[in-house]
């Protein structure tokens, strides 16, 4: 497929690319981080970089919740699941995440009962159907999925279920962004804010990024044009010397978020003092656990957990990829020892992970670049069609 066919409005995309190019100061490089894994997916799938001038590059951030789960937590989950009276439930994305010995899939081959569910509410149903078993839901995700876990807990409480608990691994996006801002390795000019997380938390929690760090942030939608438009908004802010939080995705994201969802989270969960993120290390106040009122639904308190911190495998460079310091294809094991079928690191597991997204679609990006370059030399002016091929393996 030619790259122009993929866009609903190829002309608009080209025009945006040209306007972004006009806003570039000569000799200045611009780096924007897209925080959300869904954005990373779109960027590779649609070859967004092809539309950006060479001076502007997008860096992938830590916004894939599967990718930031440290190995020790996978081990803890398998430890719980290895009890004969336990049925563990989890989203499909978690099934192939490597722990230090096993993934959930491997562990099932050795006798555990870890089931994929679509929704935490499905875990409740499994609990009702299996009164002689204890059903644990492995909760993962940012503020997009935390309300679902919270609502499920409220429901379990209402029903008086006594064979259901949650192994809570919910992380919060803002401390993750702050950790990146505080890390010395990276110079960023601004952020593309996550779309779906923001439907829950709204736009206000990002204001410190503009106020304290002097970086603009634009909450962006998921389509190619959304991303290009958002990059354009970021460039306009920089050109005008402004720095603010803007909402490009206001057709879905309300500025104040979803108060009902926030209230449900707040009723059932509180911030942990710290939590380990794969590759990023311990980050203060960056994850949730269940409140004392919900202790009877808290797998961490019901079961004795090893809670051992496991270092990432030596070959794995997910930390650098999650911080945007390395591009996926720059990792030494990318595409050789580490593939979506046999992932070494988490970024290769979830389709939103930067490595999996690049592995699945990077090839098409390269084909597009070839096509675009051929077309460009025949027809279009160089500024809009010159592909950013720098560093692409």
């Amino acid at each position, binding site marked *: 497929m030619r790259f122009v066919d993929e866009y609903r409005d190829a002309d608009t995309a080209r025009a945006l690319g040209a306007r972004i190019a006009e806003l570039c100061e000569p000799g200045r490089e611009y780096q924007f981080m897209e925080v959300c894994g869904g954005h990373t997916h779109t960027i590779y799938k649609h070859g967004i970089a092809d539309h950006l001038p060479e001076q502007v590059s997008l860096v992938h951030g830590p916004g894939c919740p599967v990718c930031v789960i440290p190995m020790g937590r996978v081990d803890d989950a398998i430890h719980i699941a290895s009890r004969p009276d336990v049925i563990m439930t989890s989203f499909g*994305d978690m099934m192939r995440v490597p722990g230090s010995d096993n993934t959930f899939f491997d562990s099932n081959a050795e006798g555990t009962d870890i089931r994929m569910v679509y929704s935490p509410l499905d875990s409740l149903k499994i609990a009702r159907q299996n009164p002689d078993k204890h059903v644990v839901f492995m909760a993962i995700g940012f503020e997009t999925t935390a309300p679902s876990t919270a609502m499920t807990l409220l429901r379990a409480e209402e029903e008086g279920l006594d064979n259901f608990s949650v192994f809570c691994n919910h992380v919060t996006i803002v401390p993750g962004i702050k950790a990146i801002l505080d890390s010395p390795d990276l110079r960023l000019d601004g952020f593309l804010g996550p779309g779906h997380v923001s439907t829950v938390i709204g736009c206000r929690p990002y204001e410190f990024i503009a106020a304290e760090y002097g970086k603009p942030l634009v909450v962006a939608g998921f389509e190619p044009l959304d991303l290009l438009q958002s990059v354009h908004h970021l460039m306009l802010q920089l050109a005008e010397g402004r720095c603010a939080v803007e909402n490009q995705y206001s057709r879905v994201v309300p500025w104040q978020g979803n108060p009902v969802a926030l209230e449900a989270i707040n009723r059932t969960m509180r911030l942990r003092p710290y939590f380990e993120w794969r590759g990023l290390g311990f980050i203060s106040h960056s994850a949730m656990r269940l409140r004392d009122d919900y202790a009877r639904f808290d797998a961490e308190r019901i079961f004795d957990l090893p809670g051992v911190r496991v270092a990432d495998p030596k070959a794995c460079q997910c930390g650098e990829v999650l911080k945007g310091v390395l591009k996926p294809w720059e990792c030494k094991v990318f595409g050789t020892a580490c593939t979506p079928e046999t992932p070494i690191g988490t970024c290769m597991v979830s389709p939103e992970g930067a490595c999996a997204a690049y592995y699945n679609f990077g090839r098409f990006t390269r084909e597009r670049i070839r096509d675009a370059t051929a077309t460009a030399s025949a027809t279009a002016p160089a500024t809009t069609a010159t592909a950013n091929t720098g560093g692409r393996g």
Partner: protein
Amino acid sequence: MCLGIPGEIVEILPDRPDLARVNVSGVRRAINVGLLEADPPRPGDWVLIHVGFALSKIDEEEAAAVSRYLEELGQAYTDEIDALSQSMIE
């Protein structure tokens, strides 16, 4: 799991104002609409669904755009719809 998928509300379940039957690309399943209680959706409305919960209302045009976008994702969307069709929310 991170994908927000658009669904059209078919009906609110009798006696369960927090549950609605939705139609997602032809798959009909129950989802929870409790997070929208401040402005509850009605049959014919479109919502963005995350792991069995409607997180926001969207208009029909946005729903069509998101669906198109998801269909282009290929496998990831097929997996999500498969997961949804296994779901038994009640």
